[in-house]
Structure formats: C-alpha cells, structure tokens
C-alpha cells in the first residue's frame, strides 16, 4: 500500500467480502440444505439458516440402499483408494523417470523425454473410446487397476521433478560419487530427502486430482460395486424430476466435497506450492 486512502481500503474489503460471498454461496446453500428435512426444500423458498436435521440426513445417506448405486461408504472407499493409488503411483513412476532423464545419458533419452512430453497433449477426453477399448481388452474394466493405471503416466509430475533435479548442484552428486554412492544409493540417500517438500506438495495436488476424477471412472466402471463417489453423487442428483430428496443429496454432496476441501484448507501452503510448481 503506497498511499493511505481509507476509502480505497474500504473498497478493497468490500470487494473481497463480495468475492468470498460469491465463492462461498453455493456451498453455503448446500450446507443449509443438508441440515433440513425433506419438506423444507420442496418449494423455492429455501430457508437460509441451518436446520436440525444434519445428523439424520448423514445417517440416511450412509445407510440407504439405492438401486443401481452402491452404498455411499463403498463409493467413498473406492474414491479414496483411487486417489491414493494415483498419488503414490504417479509420484513413484515420475520421480524415477525424471531421475533417469537428468542423471544418465543413454541412447533413447531424448526420445523418452518427448514421449513423456506428448502425454501433455493427450488428455483423456481426446482418446475416450480407444483408451476404453485398450482397458477393456486388458480386462481391466471394473477394477482398481483400470481406474488408476491409465491416469498415472502423465507428464506434469515428471517435469516438476526434472525441473527440481536440475536445480540441485552438480557437486552434490559428484561428492556422493566420490563418497562411494552409486546411482541407487545417491537417489535414496540424497535426492529423495531433498525432494521431500516437492513430494508432499504433489501428494496434495494429486490426491485432489484423483478424488475429483469423473469422466474416466464413468467410462471404466459398469459394476456399481466399483463406482466412485463423484459418480455416485451425480447419480443421486440426477434421479431428478421424480421428487429428488434434496436434503440428503446435499448432505451427500457436502460429504463428497469434504476431504479435498479439508486438505486444501489445512495444507494450504503445500497445496499452493504444488500448484505453482507443476505449472511453471
């Protein structure tokens, strides 16, 4: 702040409060909706203050059996594992690929780099059918493998690690070599510990990414036992027209949103670092 203009400060706060309201509004509505009974929401005149039915709604969501959709907790379980596997898998294969490309010189190196780069230009949406065909041919439909493996090879994590490795001083590796560390020891004793914050930041970002997946699980699962939470929640909401139970739907929505939101709020610094580093 360069000068002291009180009205500008007032304006700043006003703008920000409006911003926060816009941003929070839908979730606030959802929260409110999840705390009321079924009748309170049947008209457009929605109450703006919380009701007392939150616990009932949550219990109902968790225990009800719907046809064509798996139990809520099962879908949450699937989503959790999908996110975890994607996170761990992606970090693992990316960090070793980046290590190979940066610290070794081998004939196919440049080719490998460009092949990995290409994945940036092939989001799943442009290869829906054929990727589905491959997964089906490998009998990976309706499995955790099918949900996760096709998503773990994209380039962003590899590039992040590569960029990070390039900033590590050459002498560190040379000193380690003189100290008798071979490539694997060097990776384990020196490189990995130094990569800790990057790995943590990536964990946050990738977990959120994995949790949020919608299109791919939609394609790859036909058995409700393997539905993910995002799919399930959407199906609940889409049962529409025939008298949707908005209060429970919103309770489910809020619960589905919770894990990533909590992560972002409590690990904000890591999250921000992860976003900024993967896009640079």
């Amino acid at each position, binding site marked *: 702040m360069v000068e002291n203009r009180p009205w500008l400060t007032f304006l700043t706060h006003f703008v920000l409060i409006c911003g926060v309201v816009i941003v929070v509004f839908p979730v606030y509505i959802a929260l409110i909706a999840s705390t009321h009974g079924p009748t309170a929401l049947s008209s457009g005149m929605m109450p703006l203050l919380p009701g007392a039915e939150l616990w009932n709604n949550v219990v109902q969501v968790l225990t009800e059996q719907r046809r064509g959709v798996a139990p809520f907790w099962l879908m949450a379980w699937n989503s959790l594992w999908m996110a975890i596997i994607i996170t761990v898998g992606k970090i693992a294969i990316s960090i070793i690929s980046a290590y190979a490309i940066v610290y070794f010189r081998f004939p196919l190196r440049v080719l490998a780099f460009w092949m990995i780069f290409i994945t940036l230009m092939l989001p799943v949406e442009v290869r829906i059918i054929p990727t589905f065909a491959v997964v089906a041919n490998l009998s990976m439909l309706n499995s955790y493998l099918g949900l996760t493996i096709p998503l773990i090879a994209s380039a962003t994590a590899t590039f992040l690690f590569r960029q990070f490795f390039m900033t590590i001083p050459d002498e*560190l590796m040379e*000193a380690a*070599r003189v*100290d008798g560390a071979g490539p694997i020891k060097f990776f384990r004793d020196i490189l990995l510990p130094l990569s800790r914050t990057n790995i943590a930041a990536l964990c946050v970002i990738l977990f959120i990414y994995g949790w949020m997946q919608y299109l791919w699980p939609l394609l790859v699962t036909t058995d409700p036992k393997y539905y993910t939470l995002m799919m399930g929640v959407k199906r609940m909401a889409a049962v529409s027209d025939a008298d949707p139970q908005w209060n429970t739907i919103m309770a489910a929505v809020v619960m589905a949103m919770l894990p990533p939101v909590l992560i972002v709020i409590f690990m904000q610094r890591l999250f921000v670092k992860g976003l900024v580093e993967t896009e640079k």
Partner: protein
Amino acid sequence: MASIDLKGVRKVYQGNVTAIHALDLSIADGELVVLVGPSGCGKSTLLRMIAGLETITDGTISIGDDVVNKKEPAERDIAMVFQNYALYPHMSVRQNLEYGLKNRGTPRDEIDRRVNEAARILEITPFLDRKPRQLSGGQRQRVAMGRAIVRQPKAFLFDEPLSNLDAKLRGQMRIEIRRLQRSLKTTSVYVTHDQLEAMTLADRLVVMNGGRIEQVGKPIELYDKPASLFVAGFIGSPPMNLLPIAALQAIAGGTMPSLPTGTDIVGIRPDQVVVGSGEGIALSGTVELIEPVGGESHLYVRVEGLDQTLILVQQGRASVGEADQIDFVLPLAALHGFNKESGLRVD
C-alpha cells in the same frame, strides 16, 4: 598415500574440442602439487579426470601402482574438496562426515573414531550435530575438508576450495590447509586460479595454459626462471614488465646489452628496477599513478616510445610524486629474455 602418474593424458570433447593436449605429469607421494592457470586452461578438467568424474580420451592415469582409467571415483581411493563445499544439506555435519565411510562398510566404532579425530583437528567438534545451512562459509569449508580427511585416502583433490571465501578467510584457510597436508602427508593436487595461493601452497607448481603444461617446478624456480612468456606474466604480482627489444633499442640504444639471438622481448620484475642511475638499460619516464600499498609503493610509469606502462615497486613510500619525471635502470642480471614467436625463454 601414493604417487600419481599421468602419461600422455588427453581429453577431447564431442565436436572435436581438445581440452587437454597429451601431457605427462608425475606427482610424488606426499607432495602438494598446485595446478594453476587462467579460466579454461584445463586445470579443473585435469583434476576431475584424476578423480574419475571426467572420462579420459587417451593416456593413462595411475594412482600408486594401479592404472585407474576405468575405475569409478569411489574405487580410486581419492577424496575431493569442492569449491562449493557440496555438503549434503539435509544431513548433519556428523552424517556428512560419515557418509563415505558408511558406504564402504567401515565398522561403526572406526567411523566414530575417525569422525571425532577429524573434527578435533579441524576444530569443528561443536558443530557436529548442526546442519550445513547453520554454518558460515569458513566452517562449511572445514567440514568439506573433514569429509576428505576421514576417508584417509591415497590422495586429496582440491577444486578451488577457497574461491568462495573472503580475502581474510582465504588467507587463514590457506595456512590451515598447508599445515594439515604437512601433518597428514597425503599426496594432494590443488587447483586454483589465484597465483598467490599457488605460490604459497605448492611443493611444486604446474602452470597450465590452453590445455597444456607451460612449466613445472618449485614455485621459486618458476618465479626466478619462467620458461615462457606466459609463465613470466602469470607468476608474480605485480606482473613482470615485458618489453619489446626493438622499442627499447630505439630509446636506450647506448645502454642496451648484447642479448642472445632470438631474443625479442625482455622481461624484468617490478621490484628489480633500480631508480636513479646505475648499470643497465637506462630509461626515463613520467609517473602516471602511484599505488601506496603500505609497505611498498607501486609506480606506474609512462615512457616515450613504449606502448606498455612500466610498473616499478619501491620499498616504503615513493621517492617521487605523480606526474613527476623519474629516471631508472634495468640491471642486466635481472633481465629475462624471451622469443616472441615461440613464447619461450632464451638463455
């Protein structure tokens, strides 16, 4: 403890760039040899080839009796001290010191013994449990040396270790390194671009230029009898005055001595120029600038007919002031003769 022998060692990079032309060098057991030269002369490349961090295009490098061309750095039993210390930032000082020994499977009590001993010698015992980022530059450099000492290697390799320190610290560390090497008696190869460090540390000095060795010998030998124009101009501060015979002939014809054939450049050290009159080539000029360094004064003198500015060193204060005329003499005994084309000394 071992000697190091380089025979016909050559290094050519991709694209046919020759970094090191075939050279030979023998380093005796226990000696501290300094490789000195300007940037790009190949001294660091040579050091890294001895270490095993660069491949050798031709020739052999032996440490002790073993030819080590194909061996990994860890197998050569050498230890290296880097310019940027290269301490493992996430490990404590103690862990940094232990790392090399652990990788070799040294028993625990032996590791502890060596680490504590090295810490004692280098006076870093209070820092053993700190991380490198909590230490100052000088302390980090001592830890880097500690890492080399605990290994008890056949040779120490120093890659411009003092370049990142301030002048005062550099002076102190120089003495410490010298003391350490003398007491441990480990063969050492030390790379620097600083000729003062080179002169004071070396048992023997190797001056390199453009991938070749210009001269090898004791520092004083190189100072007193530089074998080439390059060495003459490189060793000694302020640098030797190098003057073309032809121009001198024109100015001081009468006092010119007869010089061996082939001599077309004559050199004289600034502190050997005699102010006033005496035996030798008589010259006279205007004092452009005086640098009073304290114990001595550096005079920059312009002489009619000479392109170069001569540098004279007088003990104590200067006897003249700036813009004054000064007469001086270049004694014959102090002259060094060089042939311009070959760059070599003519005797």
